[in-house]
């Protein structure tokens, strides 16, 4: 095992120093308190600043702890906040696609549905908020497994039951699917969970570009796919637009 990394130790020392009694310190205070060369201290401070852990007062040039550090402690994005932010965009997704829209997050070994918008026809539908869906076969689940390492290990190590004749169950095939998902930025489920049902999903990111959930639509395979059985590009575009819009609302930069 390699020894401790000196620059990380120094960065930690700087953070502790800034967290102590005095709130703002100049570069020379930091350097002298820790016995560092000014150039070294400056390099570390600048890196910490880029990461948002340290902020520099524009007037005095002094350093203080950054807002990112506070967020680190409760970084978990509240799922109800996520729903509130997604509301108008998912309404519009359901409306433009003509299918039901869903927002899912990883919960234990599956996908928890945190938001559901009805298909915009007059049929009777039941709200599925709070339901769980499988990680390995649904479009929402595949997106989570492709982008969120925790979801990936749950899906990779868990049982991948053959829910229909089309469910992908072997480890190699499943990993290939996730590679494809990452390569094109969205996932599909063509009757892999329920006979007759096809779904499309794309990832939602927060302001640190962490994947926090997946948004998608689900509907009869005849509507979601064209006559050749291929997913309609218009629907893929609608889902990806929605995912981008929600991510933007959460503060993720343009991408």
């Amino acid at each position, binding site marked *: 095992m390699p020894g401790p990394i000196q620059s990380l130790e120094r960065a930690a020392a700087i953070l502790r120093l800034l967290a102590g009694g005095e709130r703002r310190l100049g570069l020379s205070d930091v350097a002298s308190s820790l016995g560092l060369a000014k150039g070294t201290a400056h390099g570390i401070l600048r890196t910490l600043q880029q990461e948002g852990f340290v902020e520099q007062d524009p007037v005095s040039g002094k350093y203080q702890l950054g807002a990112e550090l506070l967020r680190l402690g409760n970084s978990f994005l509240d799922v*109800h906040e996520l729903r509130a932010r997604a509301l108008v965009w998912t309404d519009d997704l359901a409306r433009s696609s003509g299918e039901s829209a869903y927002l899912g997050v990883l919960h234990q070994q599956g996908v928890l549905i945190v938001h559901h918008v009805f298909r915009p026809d007059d049929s009777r539908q039941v709200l599925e908020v709070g339901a769980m869906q499988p990680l390995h076969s649904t479009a929402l689940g595949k997106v989570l497994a492709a982008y969120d390492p925790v979801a990936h290990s749950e899906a990779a190590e868990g049982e991948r039951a053959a829910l229909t004749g089309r469910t992908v169950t072997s480890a190699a095939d499943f990993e290939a699917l996730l590679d494809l998902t990452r390569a094109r930025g969205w996932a599909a489920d063509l009757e892999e969970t329920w006979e007759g049902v096809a779904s499309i999903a794309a990832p939602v990111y927060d302001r640190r570009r962490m994947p926090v959930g997946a948004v998608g639509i689900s509907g009869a395979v005849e509507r979601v796919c064209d006559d050749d059985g291929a997913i309609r590009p218009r629907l893929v575009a609608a889902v990806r637009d929605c995912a981008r819009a929600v991510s933007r609302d959460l503060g993720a930069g343009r991408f």
Partner: protein
Amino acid sequence: MTDTPNGTAADSADSGSSHGSGPFIAAIDQGTTSSRCIVFDRDGRIVAVDQKEHEQIFPKPGWVEHDAAEIWTNVQEVVAGAIRKAAQDIPGFTPADVKAIGITNQRETTLLWDRHTGEPVHNALVWQDTRTDTLCRELGRDVGQDRFRATTGLPLASYFAGPKIRWLLDHVDGLRERAEAGDILFGTMDSWVIWNLTGGVNGGVHVTDVTNASRTLLMDLRSLDWDQDILDAIGVPAAVLPQIRSSSEVYGTATIGGLEDVPVASALGDQQAALFGQTCFSQGEAKSTYGTGTFMLLNTGSTPVDSRNGLITTVGYRIGDDAPVYALEGSIAVTGALVQWMRDQMGLISTAAEIETLALTVEDNGGAYFVPAFSGLFAPYWQDDARGVIAGLTRYVTKAHIARAVLEATAWQTREIADAMTKDSGVELAALKVDGGMTSNNLLMQTLADVLDAPVVRPMVAETTCLGAAYAAGLAVGFWPDTDALRANWKRAAEWTPRMDGADRDREYHNWRKAVTRTMGWIEEEEH
């Protein structure tokens, strides 16, 4: 912040059912904190939005004013902004694709201006402004609050426009003489926006619609005309008053840049516009808007229903020459505001949405009930000596139980209004259509269905207020053929069905009402 939820690549790539081409309707929402303009397509989908806040002016405690000139500038800006965004997002869009403009507005906010210069004579007095409290008590004489209720449907309260006009006439030097000479015009914000839109000093039309007029305390609900006896009693010269028109007809054509010659074709107070946008066109249909406070309106059909249970009788809308449609209105002062209080004053949550997360960590309220009578009890009790109470506390109760009680407070207050509506109108609530910021709270919506014992439904277009104004304007110019076409546009985004056991509901309601009685009489006479 005024990004639109559509008009994106998906639409232009392959338009299918989307709004690739016009025509369109524009709605202006002149609200309490901001002015907005939204452009809608024929399916009622949002094509473009622009919004701008205006200053809240607080000259004294309890006084709230708006600068009407600033508001008119903002309205012009947001109209131009929305048109510009539509042009960016929709290939081939031209302003000529906008077939009509509809207006919705903060209700009761009162303005007087000079008809020759177009200059306001004073800042607008906002509906929340309480400076006419004493005047209203004086006007009540020995009869009290209900002196004009039989004619107007309203209690004598400081919200309404009539007493605000009187205050301005009494307090602005020489104004009464100018008003009596016919040099001064009165309007709620609909009238101000329409007068300016249609030319201002150069031939602007001076009109209001029945819904806005029904909030002045000056209109007879049945004749839909100004009531001379009340005008005399309050001291408002008829010369200042706009003509009362229906909510859906062409009042004139716009003269502002970008939208020359487009018909200005609807006006509705904001809550009535939401009723219209929710397509509550049949007797017995109701909507409730859950924001800072909550406003619930029940369509009572072609007859105004007098309330003996503390509700307001108001005009719901009138389409052209059709018979007017009336509504009962109940308002709740503190709903979303209680969630904000939990966040800002108590620090128990960091965002409003987290109230749901906290509440879901427990199964029930643990015996706690929260009655947020922060400034007294409103409908149906009307007791200003009441103050807030959290009842039923034991050592067992945690912050999570209080969070439950906070959400339940909104549900039970709705139930009390719904019960009052049923008593007054004889109509059982079949379903409740909801909108507003709190509808993103799934637990609250389920709780609401449970305590009402009726389904709660959320529509797919959240902007029901602007949509209502757009609908009324579109009907007036034949953009939509009839209200059935509008109903067909209404799409259910979610529905919550009651799951609560009847005995549990009865027990909880009983406890809630017990908690309500604990709030009463807290303020004693000398503290008033």
